[in-house]
């Protein structure tokens, strides 16, 4: 039972680019107002925090190993006597940069595949979908572990492998977003006019899936952050003596009863980064997408 009411004037002046359209409304939502400042703080901390580190992060023995927080060492020391605070201030980069790279890779490749599958339909779609389904039965962590076992652990390899593993997820989202668009008559009209596939994908389809793709990007960025920090925790990311946060947690796990701060500080850091990005992603997908012209007014 649909309700026929005219929507409050839809003549929105904000029919500008997709990025402008999402930025302002994000701050209008509760999640956005919580997530953006929090994320901002963390990004600043990660980028410039290293300049405030009181001790060299790799220097062994500046404090008694496993000692609790004190005035000289605000977060205490880890198992090798390194200052936890300094290591914390320098170890956040891979929490952000690697996932960003990986998710970008998966969006470029997965997005293209999904779009193509949706547009071409038929055999192309069947093949691509089956491929995605196959890859999706296996949890990504397993695939990444197996690949990293043989390919090594440089940051570039991690970016590529993680990006690769996310491709079926992104591809499915892109395909799902593009399918209802592709069946629209304005696409058929373009085909009937003789427009090239490239033109149609760029001018008719892409603008209409930009919003859901941006939403998906923010969501998968969060997944990426979780994923990469997990890899780091498992010892498959940056190698020692790196102070990458995940690695810090793994190394200091045993100290949980003597100096919990050594493991908790980096864990909390990861938690805050991922939660704040998740809040932003939530704001983008739920509130913003509902308002931006994807809906149709009642006749």
């Amino acid at each position, binding site marked *: 039972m649909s309700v026929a009411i005219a929507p409050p004037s839809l003549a929105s002046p904000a029919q500008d680019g997709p990025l402008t359209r999402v930025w302002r409304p994000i701050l209008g939502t509760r999640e956005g107002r919580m997530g953006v400042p929090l994320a901002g703080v963390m990004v600043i901390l990660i980028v410039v925090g290293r300049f405030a580190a009181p001790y060299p992060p790799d220097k062994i023995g500046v404090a008694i190993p496993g000692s609790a927080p004190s005035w000289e060492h605000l977060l205490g020391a880890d198992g090798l006597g390194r200052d936890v605070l300094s290591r914390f201030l320098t170890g956040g980069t891979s929490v952000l940069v690697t996932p960003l790279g990986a998710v970008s890779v998966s969006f470029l490749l997965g997005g293209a595949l999904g779009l193509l599958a949706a547009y071409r339909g038929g055999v192309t779609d069947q093949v691509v979908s089956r491929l995605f389904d196959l890859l999706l039965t296996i949890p990504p962590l397993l695939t990444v572990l197996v690949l990293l076992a043989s390919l090594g652990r440089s940051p570039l390899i991690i970016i590529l492998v993680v990006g690769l593993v996310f491709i079926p997820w992104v591809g499915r989202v892109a395909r799902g977003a593009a399918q209802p668009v592709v069946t629209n008559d304005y696409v058929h009209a373009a085909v009937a006019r003789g427009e090239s596939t490239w033109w149609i994908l760029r001018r008719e389809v892409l*603008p209409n899936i930009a919003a859901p793709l941006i939403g998906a990007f923010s969501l998968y960025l969060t997944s990426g952050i979780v994923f990469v920090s997990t890899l780091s925790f498992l010892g498959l990311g940056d190698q020692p003596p790196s102070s990458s946060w995940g690695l810090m947690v793994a190394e200091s796990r045993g100290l949980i009863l003597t100096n919990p701060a050594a493991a908790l500080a980096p864990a909390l850091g990861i938690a805050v980064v991922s939660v704040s990005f998740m809040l932003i992603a939530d704001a983008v997908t739920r509130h913003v997408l509902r308002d931006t012209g994807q809906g149709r007014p009642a006749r």
Partner: protein
Amino acid sequence: MTEEALTAAGVSVAYRRPDGSLTTVVSGVSLTLEPGRVVGLVGESGCGKTSLALACMGTAAEGGVITCGSVTLDGLDLLTAPRTVLRALWGDRLAHVPQNPATSLNPATRIGRQLAQPIATHLGLTGKALHERATDLLERVGITHPTQALRRYPHEFSGGQEQRIALALALSCDPRVLILDEPTTGLDVTTQARIVTLLQGIITDTSAAALYISHDLALISTVADRLLVMYAGEIVESGATRDLVHTPRHPYTQALLAAQPSAHERRAVRGLPGRPPGHVVIDRCSFAPRCRHAEPECVAEHPVLQPLPGSRAVRCVRHDRLEFSAQPVDAWALPAEPEPVHILELDGLWCRYRKQAEPALSDFSLAIARGDTVAVVGESGSGKSTLLRAIAGLHPPGEGIVRFQGYRLAPAVRHRPDQVRRDIQLVFQDPDSSLNPRQRVGEILSRPIRLFRSDVARHEEAHTVTTALDQVGLAASTARRYPNELSGGQRQRVAVARAFLARPALLLCDEVTSALDVSVQATVLELIADLAATFATTVIFVSHDLAVVRTICRRVVVIRAGRLCEDGQADDVFRAPRHAYTRELIAAIPPPPGAAGSRRAT
């Protein structure tokens, strides 16, 4: 005097907007339902009729609030009754039948279980008595082998059967009051006719009081004894059906009647420009902006519903000074006779969809004369849209030849030369999907100019766009708007403008008015006819609506299950159909409002 089954008095309904304010969509509606009688409510989209229907049940949709009034059933005010009381009444004494009733069937449970629930709840039957009643109900709606049917799931039945089962379900406890909210809208003409007959039978047999809501004036005037005309949330006219359709007193009623095409004669239709307000207007006459007879007094104050002799009422300050007949006298002017040359020849077309067993088009052959206006008529799934897509090259036929202006066309559009792509243009059915929501109207219209109009230089493009908009009756400022800022009718006009900008030789119209209100439909039809005459365009008009077809087309082709059934001049086909299926279609059309035999006898 017959007793009243349900009375609504001064009902108003509003909706809460996201910011908390209320928008009134129904205002001060009163109506009375009597046993054995049908009250028809006519209104176009956005007039608030669904909200009213729910209010008559004593409830509102999500976000809705009934702000005042009363709805009395057997002395009980439904609007103040507690939920438990309402639930006891719903299904038992008061039933609601929604649009496309089949969608109210639960796909996950068997029919028997669904039927049993209301019967057990309201009538307290169990075991054998329950089973008997369920089978009786199914028999009543014409389901054969009811005992087996009870064990089946909804998807195991045909579409028409599902509709009937849904009716049985809604009416399972022989309710005394029926609220029918567009029960046959969107159904095939033949299914529609059967459902309407079924409903009439049930109403007569059980002496139920019924409210029949529809936008289809022709249909409703065959069913209802009294009519209420609703506009912008208010009743603007009411009275006996016969009186209203012969001598309407409100300009809107008259406009509705004038916009109705007739399948029985080629009658001119007059459209209503503009669109209705989406909410109640309280400081003036809500219809004034679109009314041909408006005067300053119409916008000075809000007209009240004035009773007239003969249990009629009208909401118009000028009603005593207006005089109009129900139908325009003139006939629709067809374009000039077609030339004796064939612009399009179809030879043995076969079209298949990948997952279906039956072909969409079977051995279809047709020749179209240049300058003609040809209708292709069929019900859903008949293959009529596939036919257009095959001609346009969007769905290449598996076999068969398409010849255009003497030349054989490549099956797929991308292999065709530019000229052909320019000369064959399509206008689609759904105004929501035919324009790219991310492009402004100006951009949308520039594209065919750039591709097909070598006679227009770059700097002249904007001017050409403005001229095109003007030709379809839209302001020049429309070029800066986005499609979602326009109404459905306006969007279709842009689509028509887009097609004619290419100056096509052949225009393919795929159900272009099916998604529009009747008053808007008429304007779009007039538009297509005018432009086709101006540019000497041949038109192929696909539709399931025989009345529209009768009005604007000279020649009719009937298609069923991918095959050609009948082909002839419209007048001949309608007066003396030769194929059994054509006869069935024509028989299913409701007689025009006002004709003899169009009303149920009192």
